[in-house]
């Protein structure tokens, strides 16, 4: 294999497997939503949605949805037995107050110090939108990022310093890409695992920031 990589579903499954039993978790819109499809059945993990649900369930079957029950991505969802509804100020107090154990977010860029850029490319004329990204980034106890390792044109997305406008400062705990799982530590980035068939040197070349080999030693 010349270009080994994990699929979106494989990344989602890895993330899901790293979420401990009993966690309260928020899955960001887009690819992170896939994590919900891979939560281990033997663990009780409570999903939070910013628009006011704890105990969010999967998408409804045909004809089973409720018009007043959607997730942060405005898609129809279901409520699990034991679910709770609450208003927006309560929902974001859960984030800001450090009550959510983990959130999973997409990203344009992550910096070596854990800075996150995921809401704006800063292009002039672009219509900006931030939603709950900044609240999640600064509030969740651990922030996991799920993204491709490089852009479609091959630019590294893990960088020394973000060139895009920041979402949060030093907030990312761990990065899951199609190539590797990388921890953000006080000593810098540490690769914990990477896709079979990829050398550590090749991973380092795809990463625009110093990267330690977490398998060694």
């Amino acid at each position, binding site marked *: 294999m010349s270009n080994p990589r994990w699929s979106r579903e494989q990344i989602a499954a890895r993330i899901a497997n790293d979420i401990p039993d009993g966690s309260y978790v928020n899955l960001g819109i887009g690819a992170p939503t896939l994590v919900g499809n891979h939560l281990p059945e033997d663990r009780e993990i409570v999903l939070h949605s910013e628009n*006011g649900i704890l105990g969010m369930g999967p998408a409804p079957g045909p004809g089973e949805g409720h*018009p007043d029950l959607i997730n942060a991505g405005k898609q129809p969802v279901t409520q699990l037995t034991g679910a709770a509804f609450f208003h927006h100020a309560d*929902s974001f107090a859960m984030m800001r107050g450090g009550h959510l154990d983990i959130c999973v977010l997409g990203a344009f860029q992550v910096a070596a110090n854990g*800075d996150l850029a995921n809401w704006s490319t800063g292009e002039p004329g672009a219509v900006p939108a931030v*939603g709950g990204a900044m609240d999640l980034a600064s509030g969740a106890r651990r922030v996991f990022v799920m993204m491709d390792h490089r852009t479609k044109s091959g630019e590294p997305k893990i960088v020394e310093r973000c060139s895009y406008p920041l979402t949060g400062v030093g907030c990312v705990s761990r990065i899951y890409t199609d190539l590797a799982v990388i921890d953000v530590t006080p000593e810098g980035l540490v690769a914990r695992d990477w896709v079979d068939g990829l050398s550590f040197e090749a991973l380092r070349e795809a990463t625009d920031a110093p990267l330690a080999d977490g398998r060694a030693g």
Partner: protein
Amino acid sequence: MADIFDGATVLIGGFGGVGVPNELIDALIAQGARDLTVVNNNAGNAEFGVAALLKTGRVRKIVCSFPRQADSWVFDGLYRSGRLELELVPQGTLAERIRAAGAGIGAFFCSTGYGTPLAEGKETRIIDGRGQVLEHALHADFALVKAQRADRWGNLVYSKTARNFGPVMAAAARCTIAQVDEIVELGELDPETIVTPGIYVRRVVRVAPQAAARAS
């Protein structure tokens, strides 16, 4: 709705298409007030509800967290042509600024947005070792919210995620108007489960839920 005046700040409930008081917005459009400041999480979809209000050109400024959506072309056009001012606020900060207004809090410090472009020009402090941004209460003249059931005292209960901004908006405006599916007799709402106590609600309007909306 007759007393909504030109230049008023109007909070409008809803998240995406859920919990939006579309019929009250239609009434505001018919009423004709202009130079409005509108606060809503989004900036409208397609050409109904908030988007229809924007399209009238009577909104001077919108305060929201997530204007850009696949079908937000009315907002996009007005924003790009400079005919609509945008104040972009992180969603939780938006909710808390509205909550603060209703709770008599003038401003608060929070970590959301610290070190980002949305904190530029704002006072910051390090509190408990974390950078925090000063955010001011967001007061309003009117709030338009949607709930499921109300009684004569204005007590409200909501439906699932249609609750979203309703409770904090109801408390933050000088005059709150709630549209509801059903108005019930006093005592029919369980006092233990009332979400918005009637003190925050000035007027209640029953809008029969449309069969089409239910089925969608």
